[in-house]
């Protein structure tokens, strides 16, 4: 790690200017859209999201609308698609699935990809209260393999539904699917587990999407999983993206590592989408 080489990242942060103006590519690989029942979110609409992206210099966000994460998959996928249609350069859409209805999954994914224009898959085993290793998700893995796409999953250690280790058999069985372990397992114990899994399987990526995290963990996740294997994600507008931006930008990671995580890795992954 060498935070002193290359760009003066603290000067960029203190300028408050979009990172893109400093030549940094920023892609948010873990974002949402819309309100949530559990707490108040000011202005979670798509137009305000684009305004925030312009403020930070985020060129693109990969989104899954909040209802698609659990409340109503069909309505949620439609909402995601509307945002993508309105801002096709700004957003790439994740299609979501409900593992309690595996018989509907193939049709909903075909509708989402082929009619709505969504390109990746997001699963949230915690909200669905269904283990990622369960048979209800199998149609989604088969579809992802067939389309050689990316699957973003919420991951959290401590529960039994989506701990990072539960992705090992999936990564092994579906080598053509890229799995992004959202939140990198969510807790310090989860970060360790996520790093271990990422080290073992080249098709597993981690993201830095957390409302709180010390820079010790930011630096350890990127260094130990590898700077080519970590993505910048924020959960926005579920959570304020500015904190996640500041956390990575101010870390003691090398200039090269920060640039990879902020966007270069996501650009490469996006390029692999069929």
């Amino acid at each position, binding site marked *: 790690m060498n*935070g002193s080489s290359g760009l003066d990242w*603290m000067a960029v*942060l*203190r*300028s*408050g200017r979009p990172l893109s103006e400093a030549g940094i590519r920023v892609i948010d690989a873990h974002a949402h859209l819309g309100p949530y029942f*559990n*707490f*108040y*979110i*000011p*202005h*979670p609409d798509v137009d*305000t999201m684009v305004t*925030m992206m312009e*403020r*930070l210099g985020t060129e693109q966000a990969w989104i899954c609308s909040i209802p698609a994460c659990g409340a109503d998959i069909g309505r949620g996928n439609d909402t995601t698609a509307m945002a993508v249609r309105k801002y096709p350069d700004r957003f790439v859409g994740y299609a979501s699935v409900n593992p309690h209805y595996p018989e509907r999954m193939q049709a909903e994914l075909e509708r989402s990809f082929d009619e709505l224009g969504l390109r990746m898959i997001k699963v949230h085993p915690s909200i669905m209260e269904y283990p990622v290793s369960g048979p209800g998700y199998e149609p989604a893995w088969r579809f992802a393999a067939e389309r050689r796409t990316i699957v973003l999953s919420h991951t959290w250690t401590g529960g039994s539904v989506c701990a990072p280790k539960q992705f090992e058999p999936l990564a092994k069985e579906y080598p053509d699917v890229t799995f992004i372990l959202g939140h990198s397992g969510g807790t*310090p114990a989860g970060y360790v587990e996520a790093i271990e899994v990422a080290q073992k399987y080249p098709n597993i990526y981690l993201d830095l999407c957390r*409302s*709180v*995290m*010390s*820079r*010790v963990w*930011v630096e350890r996740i990127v260094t130990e999983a590898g700077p080519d294997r970590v993505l910048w994600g924020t959960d*926005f*507008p*579920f*959570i*304020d*993206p*500015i*904190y*996640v*931006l*500041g*956390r*990575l*930008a*101010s*870390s*003691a990671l090398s200039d090269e590592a920060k640039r990879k995580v902020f966007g270069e890795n996501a650009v490469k992954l996006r390029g692999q989408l069929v």
Partner: protein
Amino acid sequence: MRLFDANCAVGTWPSDRVAYETVDELLAEMDRLGIERALVSHTLAQHFDAPEGNRILMQVLAGRERLLPCWTVLPLSCGEMGSAQELIQDLAGANVRAVRLYPRTHSYSLDIWQCGDLLGALSERRYVVLIDIDQTDWSEVGRTCAAYPDLSLVITQLGYRQFRFLFGLWAQHPNLYCDLSNFSTYLGVEEVLQRLGSDRLLFGSGLPTLDAGGAIARVFYTRAPESDIEAIAHGNLERLLARVQMGKEGAR
């Protein structure tokens, strides 16, 4: 733009590896991040013994003008902090203008039957009192703000799920503040500026368990008049500390 950190600590940490432990390391981190001054507690006052932690805090901060002490205090029921008068004297003797409370970790209630004498004495002197939201609940916060209107009560490490509670109380209590260490509601700072102005928010890093970069970015990426940003970055904390009426220093 000067940054005055309302919320950081020095010392060892039991449950995770942290970015620094000593005062020299804290100052190096502040230099790296561009933080000018900080209100500092000692982790031993949280995780070992409050009076001993405060004593060690004063030792390690001696001669460090950029670092202001923030003591951790306890209810007066068991006599660990002395009487109310003695505590006020001790705070004055150490030039301490802000204190921290950990009701959950330290096993006491914030209610009047438990903390009435402590909070009454602090309120009389207009002290700044900091408390992590996970150390209390919003009803307790509301009762405390109402019962001690001259206290400046600063909620730290807020999180992103609290705005319905927060705005419910903010409408009623002008002595309620929040730091930015985890003020992570999307567009939350902008919402506060629009509804209440810039007086209620203080820059705070949450170091060492949280990362200062997030709160620093939150200051500089807020689109607001320069005067509002200055208030959040340092002005509000300076104002709250300046209104503390120190007691008379006394021998113990």
